[in-house]
């Protein structure tokens, strides 16, 4: 089989894509990592020097990075859990034949995924304003004591940003789960029902194992998406109030924007390492449970 494949599709055909990949991904990534060990900056951009791990010493000596790292991990964890739990729940709902609005609902749930983050930012800044529709609604139904300055209260700001991201992306994850659910033959459920399995047993022993590949994809995508958080924070709070919602990439943006490119690269390097280690761990765990088997 492998020999036939090689004969029909020679390996040179990979060359164009490979060259582009190397030129536009591998080389810039490797260069970026190299710059993490230099003093490259806007003031003297053509005369940079290797300075060892000085940039890393600086970023780990400031409490802001640790706060940014914590915020990034919190955002990732929050969004991974809720995107997947709600995404799977919605997929089960719109996959249910007895749910009449299932076709319309799929479109409606997926719609926020099409919206530009800046547009979402403008909408939610108004919606979540202290005198905005959400607080007015809470007051109207007698829950005024729950009203908050959602984006400017340091206790809630990060969770609010993460919730907006869940709202935006949950439809995307729903679609992946839906595709996985559609691939499960109905006979399995019929047989299980005849054998006396209740809804929970059918979900636990048929649905979950058979959507494990979709689950793995969703978890990996949401981890990477969560750790790479930037635009959500940038448009909703810009890291504020008082740096309380800054994440690693907003520091990168800030350092890059102020011309401190070596330090910005070091921040990026740290984030890349974290994403790499976490994803490797998750893949290992999923593989161990058979989630990645073909």
């Amino acid at each position, binding site marked *: 089989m492998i020999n036939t494949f090689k004969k029909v599709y020679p390996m*040179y055909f990979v060359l164009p894509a490979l060259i582009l990949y190397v030129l536009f991904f591998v080389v810039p990534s490797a260069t970026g990592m190299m710059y993490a060990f230099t003093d490259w900056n806007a*003031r003297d951009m053509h005369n940079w020097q290797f300075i060892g791990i000085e940039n890393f010493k600086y970023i780990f000596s400031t409490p802001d990075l640790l706060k940014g790292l914590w915020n990034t991990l919190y955002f990732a964890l929050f969004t991974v859990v809720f995107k997947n739990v709600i995404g799977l729940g919605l997929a089960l709902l719109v996959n249910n034949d007895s749910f009449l609005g299932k076709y319309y609902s799929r479109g409606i749930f997926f719609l926020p995924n099409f919206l530009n983050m800046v547009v979402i930012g403008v909408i939610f800044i108004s919606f979540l304003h*202290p005198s905005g529709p959400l607080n007015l609604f809470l007051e109207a139904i007698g829950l005024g004591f729950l009203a908050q300055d959602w984006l*400017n209260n340091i206790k809630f700001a990060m969770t609010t940003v993460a919730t907006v991201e869940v709202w935006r992306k949950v439809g995307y994850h729903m679609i992946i789960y839906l595709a996985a659910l559609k691939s499960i033959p109905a006979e399995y459920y019929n047989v299980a029902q005849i054998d006396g399995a209740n809804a929970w047993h059918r979900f636990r022993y048929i649905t979950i194992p058979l959507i494990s590949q979709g689950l793995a994809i969703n978890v990996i995508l949401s981890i990477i998406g969560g750790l790479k958080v930037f635009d959500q924070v940038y448009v909703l709070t810009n890291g504020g109030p*008082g*740096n*309380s919602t800054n994440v690693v990439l907003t520091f990168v943006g800030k350092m890059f*924007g102020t011309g401190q490119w070596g330090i910005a690269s070091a921040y990026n390097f740290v984030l890349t390492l974290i994403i790499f280690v976490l994803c490797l761990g998750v893949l290992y765990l999923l593989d161990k449970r058979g989630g990645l088997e073909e």
Partner: protein
Amino acid sequence: MFKKLMAITVAMVMLATLFAGCGAKEEPMNDTTEKAAAETKNDGAKEEVEQAVAEEITLTYAMPQSQYKDVMRSLIERYQTEFPNVTIDIQAIPDAQFDDLMQTKLNLEEAPDLITTDKRKRSNWGVDKFVVFENEDWQARLIDGVDEYEKGAKDGGELRTLIFQGPALEGGILYNTKMFEKYGLEPPKTMDEFYAVSEVFKADGIIPLYASDKDLWTIQIFAASACAQFMTDEDYELINSNQMKWADVPELADALDTMANLRLNGYTNEDFLAATYDSALGIMAEEKAAMYVMGTWFIADVANANPDVELGYTAIPFMEDVAGAFPGRGGLSIWKGSENVDQAKHFVNWFSQPENFNEFQLSWGFYPAFVDQNLQMPEWQTKVYDDYIASGKISYTITNSNVLPGTIMGEYFSIQQEILVGLVDGKGALEKWDIEYAMQAKNTGVEAFQ
């Protein structure tokens, strides 16, 4: 063998096709570069500058979004009508992103032709990135002896901007004169007086002081202006030579704590962290608040929004009646790498003409910079001029000429927001700023910080 050759050929053709688009744009770029080089040679000669607008051209002009007001739209439309060959493409960039974005554009050599700058911005971005003005018509018309102009405009003795005004007040308390009259109150000159008048307004359901702390640049005005009342040149010298820390100035920590306590003790609107300069404009124009900490340009903005509202100015009542000032608020500079330096100079010269400059300055509440302006200032502006500028009751603030050249103040502003949410107090904020200040000084090569 034949199949192998075919496969290699197909692979090469695919590769060549993919790269075809990349090469196509190279030629025009070379043309443009050569044209730019040729045009730059014309620098200086007036006739050639006039000739420069004889050809169709688009000038790009970047400014902070809050500065793109109706007056600027109107002036640009007028210029384009008078010189139909020239189109001015305005890049109004959100204030919070302006400094970073311009720095990046300048570093990448993709900057707009005209940029609104000030001394600090030019220092941060690199003064050598801007055209030096020499023997321009408008330079001969500058008011003699306006040393503020010299301080604000010149970088190392060279003029790289058409400054928007003479001396400028960074900020103070802008108060609604009619409301103060109605309650029989005088503008506060001490913090005790401030609290007393605030209580009167609070008792009547009026917001005593509006605070717009979503915008970082507005938070810092209180302490920056207050520091003009206690920081000395010697203090700045000691800090900039690393012999003293910002946190070693107890008055500054006190000013920051005072600023925060105004919010936390209920003298401001509750939604101060969600409020912006624009919302302040609406609130003050609707007379829902009695005072606002801002620069005097805000008075003109409110007058435009509601001509019935009259605002007055008094210095931040922190220690004494001295107004925080900085040398010139903004100016018009030309990017040195521009392909349209002559055309940009033509616009700058046109902009400086009395009929245009007066319109611009009246809209902003600025003070004249040219001998032939005959600017008819409104009453409030004349009063501010007499009370503070003419009587010498001004002193420079922290944010411009006093910090080390190249200092990026964004973090200083951001740290002040941390005080408002209770993450640090004034002293703690200054200790954080000391770390950041030292790092920046080290990166810019200041010997004392190495």
